[in-house]
């Protein structure tokens, strides 16, 4: 099979979607397979890589950890035949398992650089079940934000590694209250080089055991084209 000539991509679509309810327990890799199969069921003309093991040209902006829900996921899809974005939305939506829902689809330039390379930050909303008063939680957050460094340990590839969480944490705040506790917000670094995890921040704050849910609410990337 020839491997040299590139696949002709005639259209790129950027899709924003939510990942909610139980499907949040599906890993990133598994989720990409779910998307591939949904696109096939919807008969979408997705471009595939050539070579030994053809892979669909669908690229996620940023992997979402298992167990987090999200209202801000982004997926870029390359097609070999141009379609009206609205048409794609109509055909693809009924093929999605419960918990996945498309919010919008727009066309982007074929030359547009990948989102992964331009990701900068992500925001999260965390629900805590706690009886601690709001001001006390606010103070704890302020104390954490005012430190110079937050040394932490993490198991990676079977080895304990030390790292500093502080530079990965851009901001944190108390958002509101709910029946059984408090809702926090956080903004963390998210890029190819360094990614901060909200659950690590919660652990540093001492709220791990109080966490009810973590939801990604926003992805922030560089809008400026690198050539501009």
């Amino acid at each position, binding site marked *: *099979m020839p491997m040299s000539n590139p696949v002709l991509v005639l259209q790129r679509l950027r899709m924003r979607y939510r990942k909610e*309810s*139980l*499907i949040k*327990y*599906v*890993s990133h*890799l*598994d989720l990409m*397979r*779910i998307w*591939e*199969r*949904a*696109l*096939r*069921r919807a*008969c979408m003309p*997705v471009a*595939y890589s050539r070579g*030994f*093991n*053809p892979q*669909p040209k669908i690229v996620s902006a940023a992997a979402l950890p*298992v*167990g987090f829900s999200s209202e801000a996921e982004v997926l870029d899809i390359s097609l070999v035949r141009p379609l009206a974005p609205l048409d794609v939305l109509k055909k693809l939506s009924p*093929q999605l*398992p*419960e*918990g996945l829902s498309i919010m919008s689809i727009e066309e982007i330039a074929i030359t547009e650089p990948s989102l992964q390379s331009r990701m900068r930050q992500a925001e999260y909303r965390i629900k805590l079940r706690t009886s601690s008063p709001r001001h006390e939680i606010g103070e704890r957050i302020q104390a954490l934000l005012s430190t110079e460094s937050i040394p932490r340990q993490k198991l990676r590839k079977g080895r304990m590694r030390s790292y500093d969480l502080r530079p990965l944490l851009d901001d944190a705040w108390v958002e509101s209250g709910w029946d059984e506790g408090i809702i926090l917000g956080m903004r963390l670094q998210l890029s190819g080089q360094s990614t901060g995890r909200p659950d690590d921040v919660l652990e540093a704050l001492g709220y791990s055991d109080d966490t*009810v*849910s973590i939801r990604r609410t926003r992805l922030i990337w560089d809008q400026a084209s690198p050539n501009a």
Partner: protein
Amino acid sequence: MVMIRESDLDRILPQVTRPGRYIGQEWNSIVKDWESTRLRFALAYPDVYEIGMSNLGVMILYDILNRRDDVLAERAYAPWPDMEAAMRRESMPLYSMETRHSLRDFDIVGFTLPCESNYVNVLTMLDLAGIPLRFDDRTEDDPLIVGGGSGAYNPEPLADFFDLFVLGEGEEVIIELVDACRDWKLSGDRSKAGLLMHLAAIPGVYVPSLYRVTLGPNCNVAAVEPTVPEAPGTVLKRIVAELPPPPTRLLVPNIRIVHDRAAVEIQRGCTQGCRFCQAGVIYRPVRERPPRDVLKAAEEILSCTGYEEIALVSLSSSDYSHIEDLVQALTDRPPGPPVSVALPSLRTDSFSVGLAEMIQRTRKTGLTFAPEAGSQRLRDAINKKITENDLMRTAEAAYSRGWRRIKLYFMLGLPSETDDDAHAIVKLARKVLAIGRAVHGRKARLNLSVATFIPKPHTPYQWLPMADRETIGRRQAILRAGLSSKAFHISWSAYDAALHEAALARGDRRLGRVIQRAWAQGARFDAWGEHFRPDIWREAFASLELDQESYALRGRPYEENLPWDHLSVGVTKSFLWDEYQRGLSGEVSPDCRERCLGCGVTTAFASQHRAINEGVWKCP
């Protein structure tokens, strides 16, 4: 009635590995209205989700049951030990995937039993659902516990835990079972004894409690007799005369499973007649699905699942009459997203390498063949009809067409095997690798998967002992010493695991207590090396004054009544014995597509054989 809510799962799923196993919501899963559906059937599989979801038999039953308006079928799998612990901590019952009802709330819980090594998981599942383990501890308010599948052909060790077993193919009998249960539910007769009597009259249904078993002194059974006229003296397995259309709205899992692909069964049964093979006997007669039906089903499956791979499933795909045309048609599909074709279980010949090449347009990772024995003498004895020449030509074809790695299956401990036969495996493997090296140099690889042979019920070797530990160890050492080069990679089955499987496979009703004790002591997922605890099983046998080794290692005379003799797969005992004798004298029996060997199947199922068109059964 207990229903698990999403918020309940949110409490425990963050604590367990691979939580996607427990969420259900697979594409094509069928969720019916619980309240308004008359009969509720749980299809339970006593292994982890990734294995259970790969089982085509469960898919078939799920499809058939859910086609009925008055029935709902939902699935359940064995939770991994971390999930079991979490569920117990939270007092969460085992729930179904679709509506998350406790298994206890179903009318029938039907277990598919693939093999002996996960019997304990049945107990975990019952217990987690709050269903009493033993049939005599259950009342009319508990679900009916039913077993079936290829691991139910000697169900005696499980007789304490099941209300009934279904022998053979489930497509038709499951509907008869459901109808009978519905009628009973409507009749107002609330006695379970009445129901069981009623069900025992359905052909293929075996109700263990309606039989009196007279146990012998050692691990043998003197007699098994029915105690009521409804129960037949011999229960004959069920078959379908023709393969019905296969399910096409296959469930698509949300997480990676073992066989994460579409599957169409192209053929049931196998005509090769290998004497060690239980599947080759219990799935008789051989029936092919017409290629047109296969292709139609394949297209439907691909379009309603979105799978990128389709497997043509059978016990020996190379034997299917139209295999080349079929593979050609599937690889020549119209342009669109790429679809690959998988052919599990290929015969050892260059024809099969050609087939593999047709489908393997992509990466050439590995190709698997099963010579099973190293010497021609032993291959003749076990009726594995391939010669050394066949194997060499196959290896030549495979290596020279681009495969760098070949995998060969062998068994140790086959009847009449000597140390010389182990040396013959070494010789054979070296020759195969030499062929690979001639093509690929130092990059050629040969993997060997070496299992310990277990003489299974309903095979020509059912009377024979399993080889002892010392013999297997010695022969493994011969292989290890002879194949020490890095180009060989050998994987073994652990002797303790084989011994365990053999004892359960050949066991009788005494083993129920052993299973229950081992389970209570913590035995779980015995088929999984990391969980299997031989010490627990040894202790469980010993505490009941039974000898595990006797069950596995004791040869049995022809006259002895075997624990499964009252259960028939349609093949006569005398045919099995004759095959065993022919093997002893090195006599090869032909493929039964060529000549009928008189196994008994066409007699046992004579009316079905007469009713169908000539040529549907591959019995000449």
